[in-house]
């Protein structure tokens, strides 16, 4: 992508992002956030200076690999059972939500 779009973000862009993130924000909030987000994006632009060709990205930092549960080690834990007792449950399986 082109980097020219860095730090150009309009209140309409913010309203669109809010929709994607399922957040309700007002027009005046969108203006405030647009200015603030633009200044943050302007700040992070400095990363363009760093040469990252042939550099692998880091996701997990302390070297744990191929972690999987042993068969039968977790199963139906007390945690699953107690979580299903959550107040908003209407019976054993389904959650009730407001309309």
């Amino acid at each position, binding site marked *: 992508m082109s*980097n020219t779009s860095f730090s150009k973000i309009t209140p309409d862009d913010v309203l669109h992002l809010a929709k994607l993130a399922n957040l309700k924000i007002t027009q005046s909030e969108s203006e405030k956030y647009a200015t603030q987000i633009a200044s943050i994006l302007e700040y992070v632009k400095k990363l363009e200076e*760093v040469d990252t060709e042939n550099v692998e990205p880091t996701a997990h930092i*302390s070297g744990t690999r191929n972690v999987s549960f042993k068969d039968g080690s977790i199963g139906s834990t007390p945690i699953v059972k107690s979580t299903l*007792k959550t107040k908003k449950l209407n019976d054993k399986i389904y959650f009730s939500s407001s309309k």
Partner: protein
Amino acid sequence: MELHKKTIKEIRKLIDTKELSPEEVYSYYFNRIKKDNSKLNAFVTVNETPKIDTKLKNKPLYGIPFSMKDIFMTEGIRTTASSNILKDYKASYNATVYQKLIDNGALLIGKTNNDAWGHGSTTENSAFGPSKNPHDPEYIAGGSTGGEAVALASGMSAFGIGEDTGGSIRFPSSMCGTIGLKVTYGLVSRFGAISYASSLDTVGPMARNVEDIATVLQIIAGNDPLDATSSNRVVPDYSISDDFDLRGTRIGIPKEYFSEGIDNEVKKTIEYSIDKLRKEGVEFIEVSLPMTKYAIAVYYLIAVSETSSNLARYDGIRFGNDRSNFEEESKRRILLGTYTLSSGYYDAYYLKAAKVRTLIKEEFDTAFKNVDALIAPVSPTPPFKIGEKIDDPVKMYLSDILTVSVNLAGIPALALPSGTTKSGLPIGMQLIGKQFDEKTLINIGYKYEQELRTQNSDLRN
């Protein structure tokens, strides 16, 4: 008796010899909460009635009251993340760190205030209002684990558990003059801790002295099958070694951590601590970490991206209130993270940041070939006033400039008091170590504390 000035082991001994009962210890701290909490706003929830189980009387933390940042699941006691989304939420299971502590006899006295979801450096983003610095209530307590540092500095709890994603244990420890350990990523289970940025989040102990940090770390460290990112290394013995000698210890001074933008009083105070350590035989070597200037940019891109994803689960359907209850700073971070993860922007922001993160990690690896630890200030400035930076996110984010690199590299750092400003506000320093080498930091920190800490850097009474 000033119980809050004693170590966990000393209090434990008083209980063992029946000089004090666990109930008496608990009410000592509880009364201090009653006396000061309304003024300092350290606690979100206080637990009036401890469940003392005498079957645990031989356990190392039996009868010791502790507090936790309010992001850890505690069955039957509300867990709010200091957000209106979860203000009435009661977890149905326990975080591993909490389970380990109560299994060892510790008693949860309360859950402490933080910036909602860990989003902040001052606790001003809490739904329950800011915590106040006990040294001067007009000043920030630091964040995001601010309430915890306040509770410890004012002796309302014997030890604490915090969570550090970009400095959230170290920064408030520095602001309040207490001690906090940011552990190696994966050393302590994150199961049941509300996620902020999953590749950076770490759970660690907070205390009023280094020995207590070691005592608590011994219990909470170790693999947890419920947290796939927790390390399966064997946990070493963290207790203080009597034969540890500062002579021969090599500590690096990263010049970028003492350069432009660092307050003079902060610099002078840390340099004074360095001088004292040098007199004890520590060898200091100047090192350079030139990637430091990119750390804030990398950190905020990774953190907002991951938090926008993590907070997507709070839809108000299964638990908690709906998304209109997010606090302003959280909305800002969710929006920004939604943007940086968007199709077409992911490569330029998240992926780019993840690559620069690799370079930051490599730079630390190189530095640690020559030194046992690094020393640096925790914060570029002493505590500032509540409200001073709240409207300027970039300025606020820059408060974390000296702490975030450690999270990006997954390495441990111990924050401890270095001295105070002329007006008596705390200034903290951090000892930064190699991955899984908390033991060295604890031993250096302990020696420093025992032999070198000046009277005026001592905690509030």
